[in-house]
């Protein structure tokens, strides 16, 4: 097992799900729910002759950052692409439910509980969405999770963290977009339909999924940051993600409303304005939108290292 101090400087991109979960919270504070020792593999995969994992591809648990209880969900992309099946789904849904129950119990006991003592949920995505082997259960889990996010709204901040190899795609892209805040590193990718699927359906002229530059310019975190699809862009280290979460953990819950992408009339108006802008601009590449946002040399900005990008990038205002 990797040491916590070593994990902090480790690349978030290269870290597996359990290391990310351990490293995002304070040293030694993580307690895993339904871990590998509990032996809860998928009941469906084995029957189909596919490999099983005791934690069903997701690490769930609770730890602390300072005085804040942090409920952590961390998906493992190397196990069936981090896809959501029945057990995996039950674990992620119930982790949010537990966070809400904890808050309710705290507030019932002490209505003046300080913000920093109230729980938050952090979800480290690495997934392509539904696991097709158990698709009904997987889809249901997506719906149940969205339901929990709505129940958590105005109570428990639910924060998406995206910086792993697989990115966050499929139904889980919708789930991330429905959360309160999204933190990404430049290696994070967020979208609905994955690049290969777009190419398969629409043809290579529409989207060449072998063009990694194009894939990252379209789904990558720099673009998401400029578009406002992600709230914060951090460096690729466990410590950098952790520091951003620590900043968010102490904020009053009301502050998260302004960070949300959906769920208010203002958010709907903003999305409609973006659609109108797309019609007006007819962009051929994301860099066209970057230029419209006021970035004079978008191609250079795209290649810029983190510090330079953060200092120079103009975010799209609609």
């Amino acid at each position: 097992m990797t040491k916590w101090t070593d994990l902090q400087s480790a690349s978030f991109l290269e870290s597996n799900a359990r290391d990310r979960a351990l490293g995002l919270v304070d040293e030694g504070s993580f307690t895993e729910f339904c871990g590998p020792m509990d032996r809860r593999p998928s009941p469906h995969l084995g029957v189909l002759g596919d490999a099983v994992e005791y934690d069903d591809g997701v690490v769930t648990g609770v730890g602390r950052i300072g005085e804040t209880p942090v409920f952590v969900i961390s998906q493992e992309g190397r196990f069936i692409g981090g896809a959501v099946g029945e057990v995996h789904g039950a674990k992620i849904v119930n982790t949010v439910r537990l966070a809400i129950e904890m808050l309710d119990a705290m507030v019932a006991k002490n209505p003046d509980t300080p913000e920093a003592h109230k729980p938050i949920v952090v979800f480290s995505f690495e997934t392509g969405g539904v696991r097709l082997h158990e698709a009904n259960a997987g889809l249901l889990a997506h719906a149940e999770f969205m339901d929990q996010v709505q129940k958590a709204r105005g109570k428990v901040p639910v924060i998406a963290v995206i910086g792993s190899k697989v990115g966050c795609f499929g139904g889980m892209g919708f789930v991330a977009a429905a959360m309160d805040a999204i933190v990404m590193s430049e290696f994070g990718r967020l979208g609905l339909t994955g690049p290969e699927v777009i190419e398969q359906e629409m043809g290579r002229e529409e989207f060449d999924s072998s063009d990694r530059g194009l894939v990252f310019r379209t789904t990558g975190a720099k673009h998401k940051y400029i578009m406002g699809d992600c709230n914060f862009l951090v460096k690729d280290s466990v410590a950098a993600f952790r520091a951003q979460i620590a900043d968010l953990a102490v904020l009053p819950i009301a502050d998260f409303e302004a960070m949300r992408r959906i769920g208010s009339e203002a958010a709907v108006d903003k999305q409609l304005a973006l659609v109108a802008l797309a019609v007006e601009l007819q962009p051929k590449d994301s860099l066209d939108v970057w230029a419209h946002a006021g970035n004079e040399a978008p191609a250079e900005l795209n290649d810029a290292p983190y510090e330079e990008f953060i200092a120079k990038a103009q975010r799209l205002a609609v």
Partner: protein
Amino acid sequence: MALNQLNFSIENASPTVALGEAFHLGVVGSGDLEMIIESKEQGGAVSFQILSPVTGFDDLWKRVADAFVRESGLGNAHIEINDNNATPAVVMLRLRQALAEATAR
């Protein structure tokens, strides 16, 4: 169609290495595996439980397990492996890694 389950024991009359608390290691990625390694009093033997999508290599699994037990001197242990098409070299590597990390704690 279902996963291939393999259960066998490798005898070790004079174990030189014993385990502390149970230990988990690995990710069931493609060509990789996870394992739980824990102590179990059973007259020196090391028992294995392997779940793998691969069939027809039962003898090879036993040979790798046997080589590992003889090389390490491990005894009185139970090892559970969830395999996803790992090659014998990877299996051996993970077994050594698990033992090294489990005994270092």
